[in-house]
């Protein structure tokens, strides 16, 4: 028993002092349904970490295990040298902002925010002061006496934030808190949340299925797929150096090229270029913005191809073209928006931009 009390994870956690939460080989099954398959992940102090995944990837379950609403089938959680997963939810220095806010309908905004302090038996004057401060921080002072049903979704969101933050948690968990808001408010709240996190300096673990949201807000993204971590990296890294074909496709648009490498030359359909990759088949991710309309005079080292315009999607500043080559290869190309794209066009790309990824399907 005692030896189990001091696993490697704990030693690692103390070695890197900035680690706040250590998720160690967490697995979870509901009956025969395996939801999480041994997740290991560290959350640093003051970090904004996003758990990104499609619905059913297990992201909410992982969050609920950290909060204490579910218990893991196996694995350990460590926070501040303490086994977190053995504490009941009300003893964890972790607070949650729920997807639908879960404000108490029978209490006013003010009483909602003060709830955590009241059950902790703080003095009335202290509660008042802290609630006032928390409401001011989320700009909800004017609604202190309102019932949750009388305020808008965005406002309820802020109250839920204030209610969680007033407890001064070491870690704040946010379960798709913006998914119920409309697009405009959502963008605004993304920025507000991010600056709030910088201001209070505590770690946020944010769960979302929206890759744009993850990119805008996160210090790091943990991409979850079918209960397994696909990649954990900064938004820039995960975009420019996706580990897997799934990561490449889920985060932004990409072209996945199946290439055959023989003697330092990669072949893909009728295209070929010199490559450093070892011989054999390779999967390459080529972002649409890395393909350009071919310059009149050929640029050495670039790969050129011709194709017919099949489809175009207007995105304001840019346009996404769907190009079909004679040999059936399909390319997505991001170009400047012009109304006169049509017919057969010629493009080129730098083979260095075709980044090798692991095939997720095979995994």
């Amino acid at each position: 028993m005692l030896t189990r009390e001091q696993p490697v994870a704990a030693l690692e956690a103390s070695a890197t002092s900035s680690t706040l939460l250590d998720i160690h080989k967490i697995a979870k099954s509901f009956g025969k349904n395996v939801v999480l398959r041994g997740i290991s992940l560290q959350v640093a102090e003051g970090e904004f970490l996003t758990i990104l995944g499609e619905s059913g990837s297990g992201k909410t379950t992982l969050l609920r295990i950290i909060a204490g609403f579910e218990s893991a089938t196996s694995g350990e959680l460590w926070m501040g040298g303490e086994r977190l997963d053995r504490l009941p939810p009300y003893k964890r220095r972790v607070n949650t902002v729920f997807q639908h806010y879960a404000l108490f309908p029978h209490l006013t905004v003010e009483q909602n925010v003060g709830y955590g302090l009241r059950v902790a038996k703080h003095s009335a004057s202290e509660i008042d002061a802290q609630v006032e401060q928390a409401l001011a921080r989320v700009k909800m002072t004017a609604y202190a006496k309102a019932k949750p049903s009388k305020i808008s979704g965005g406002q309820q969101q802020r109250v839920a934030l204030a209610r969680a933050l007033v407890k001064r948690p070491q870690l704040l968990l946010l379960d798709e808190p913006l998914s119920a808001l409309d697009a405009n408010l959502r963008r605004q709240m993304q920025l507000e949340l991010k600056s709030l996190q910088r201001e209070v300096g505590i770690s946020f673990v944010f769960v979302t299925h929206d890759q744009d949201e993850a990119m805008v807000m996160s210090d790091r993204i943990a991409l979850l797929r079918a209960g397994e971590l696909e990649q954990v990296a900064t938004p820039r890294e995960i975009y420019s150096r996706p580990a897997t074909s799934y990561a490449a496709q889920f985060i932004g648009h990409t072209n996945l090229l199946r290439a055959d490498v023989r003697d330092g030359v990669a072949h893909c359909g009728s295209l070929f270029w010199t490559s450093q990759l070892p011989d054999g088949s390779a999967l390459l991710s080529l972002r649409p913005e890395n393909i350009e309309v071919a310059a009149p005079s050929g640029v050495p080292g670039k790969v050129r191809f011709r194709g017919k315009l099949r489809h175009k999607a207007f995105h304001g500043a840019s346009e996404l073209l769907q190009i079909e080559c004679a040999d059936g290869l399909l390319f997505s190309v991001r170009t400047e928006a012009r109304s006169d794209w049509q017919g057969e066009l010629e493009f080129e790309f730098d083979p260095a931009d075709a980044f090798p990824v692991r095939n997720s399907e095979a995994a």
Partner: protein
Amino acid sequence: MEFLVSATNGSIRGSRWLLLHSVFVFAFLYLPIAVLIVYSFNGAGVGGFPPRNLTLDWYRTLFSDGAIWESVGNSLIVAAVAVVIALGLGIPAALALDRAQFPGKTLFRRLVLLPLILPGIITGLSLLMLFNEASIKLSLLTIVLGHGTALISVATTEVFAGLQKLDRAQEEASLDLGANYWQTFLRVTLPNLRLSIIGAALLIFTLSMDEIAVSFFLIGRDNTLPLEIWGRLRRGITPEINAISTIIFVFSLVAIVLWYRLRRSAEGSPEVAAELIETAVQGAES
């Protein structure tokens, strides 16, 4: 006969038959009550048509009738205690049905809800035999026990419906904010169930007040109001009875309306209750 099918888009306003039919149904339902109320103000007593010499005399006689008021007092005590017993046992039962997973849960649910459809005569007779066997003297206490146990199912159904509507995330939020399980139950779960509980109490109170079948078997020396009235009826209908019945009618009406409005404001789901009753019926049949 197109109104038998809800999908028809034709107007049924023109149907004289439907109108006539409705008049008959409503007359059948409400005419007796109307007669009762009107004759409670009739100077000539129960006989004589049309009623004339409207008077409050019968109400005056009623108010000076000690035996009636004693039975009203008894009924109020019985109803109040029945509410406490039924809620005291019904709330935990509803919680168990909503949250706990245990072997034999379906059986438990059916057993809890069975009294809802069990004829009062069965409940009354079986309790009488039990009390006899245990040599417990019949008194108000036995009536209280009878009402309380027979009405647990009402409390369970109402509170269970309330629990089904409760947003579980609220309880999680409470735990998350540092409240332990008891604090969460008292500060979040119970306030959310407030309307269901008040509604159940009103309903149980009303049902107990005019309960006669179970009481009939379990009555000792102290009469409840319905039994007192029944006893007097054997000596003929008096206008005084009409007066007390009118008062009971008004009180029941107020209680039921109150209960219904509470339910509505709690955005109640009568389907849940209906489904429970259905299961109970199936349980009884199988």
